[in-house]
């Protein structure tokens, strides 16, 4: 097939695809024109039933809490897999190489943003069931604060902050804590992950029953999972900086 025939064939196919796409886009419902029964019921009932002003959090940590547990364990297993793959051939006790950032502008940026990012992450986790956000979103922002220490500081400063035993403990506690909170409901005779704490008043930090606990458990797990992931990848990079650390 010559180049000309290929291009002609592509032209015909692309036009067909474009026509089909345009046809389907014009057939889309209007923005905000939603007819799902389940979503409407939840929007109407969740704020009263669970006293959460963010219905997404009520769905994720209560009505569909079991599903979220599965997602959290998937993340746990995935990060464990990365750690097992990357960690094996390295020397664990090797000294951490010096890798300071020499640009003053970058350092100033990091100093001013690492703390702010940390506070923002904590805020997003803490208010997850009141305003948009939650354990997953806040967790990744918190992990980004750790990464800023490396980007604008040094690898050594980052390693000092994200010590592997603590990060691993935090990840395990986050994932395990979620399951334990679910089992507590089972212990007193309710269904697994049944919301058993007082619901409080919507819009306050003390609302939503056990939703805040599950939210913080997933926040801890997500933060630690991402920091652990960064740990593994950054120490791969450390091996490259210092060739003596490379496995033979």
């Amino acid at each position, binding site marked *: 097939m010559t180049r000309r025939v290929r291009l002609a064939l592509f032209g015909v196919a692309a036009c067909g695809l474009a026509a089909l796409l345009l046809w389907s886009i014009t057939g889309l419902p209007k923005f905000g024109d939603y007819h799902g029964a389940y979503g409407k019921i939840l929007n109407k009932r969740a704020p009263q039933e669970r006293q959460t002003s963010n219905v997404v959090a009520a769905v994720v940590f209560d009505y569909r809490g079991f599903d979220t547990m599965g997602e959290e364990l998937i993340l746990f297993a995935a990060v464990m897999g990365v750690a097992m793959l990357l960690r094996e051939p390295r020397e664990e006790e090797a000294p951490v190489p010096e890798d300071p950032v020499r640009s003053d502008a970058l350092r100033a940026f990091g100093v001013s943003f690492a703390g702010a990012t940390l506070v923002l992450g904590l805020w997003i986790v803490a208010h997850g069931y009141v305003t948009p956000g939650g354990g997953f979103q806040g967790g*990744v*922002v918190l*992990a980004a604060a750790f990464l800023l220490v490396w980007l604008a500081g040094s690898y050594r400063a980052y390693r000092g902050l994200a010590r592997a035993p603590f990060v691993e403990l935090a990840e395990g506690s986050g994932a395990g804590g979620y399951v334990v909170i679910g089992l507590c409901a089972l212990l007193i005779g309710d269904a697994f992950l049944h919301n058993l704490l007082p619901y409080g008043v919507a819009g306050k930090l003390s609302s939503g029953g056990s939703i805040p606990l599950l939210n913080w458990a997933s926040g801890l797990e997500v933060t630690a999972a991402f920091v652990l992931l*960064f740990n593994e990848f950054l120490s791969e*990079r450390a091996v*490259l900086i210092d060739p003596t650390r490379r496995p033979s």
Partner: protein
Amino acid sequence: MVPLQATITILVALGALAVALTSDLVRLVIVSSAYTLLLVVLFVVLQAPDVALSMLVVGTIGYPLVLFVAIRRDRADD
């Protein structure tokens, strides 16, 4: 709301094109990180702040970092 949605959708389309047309690997990571930032704006415009927050960190910082280390590692092995 609709003109804003249309504008950002076109920007996302142009960004995707830029990603597809970039051949240098390292440059590609930077371009795709910027493209993700456009997607974040699209999510905010479509009123999905929860998704935007996750995408902001995972797409613009986390994923590029993993790619950078992988590229560096791959080149060091050659």
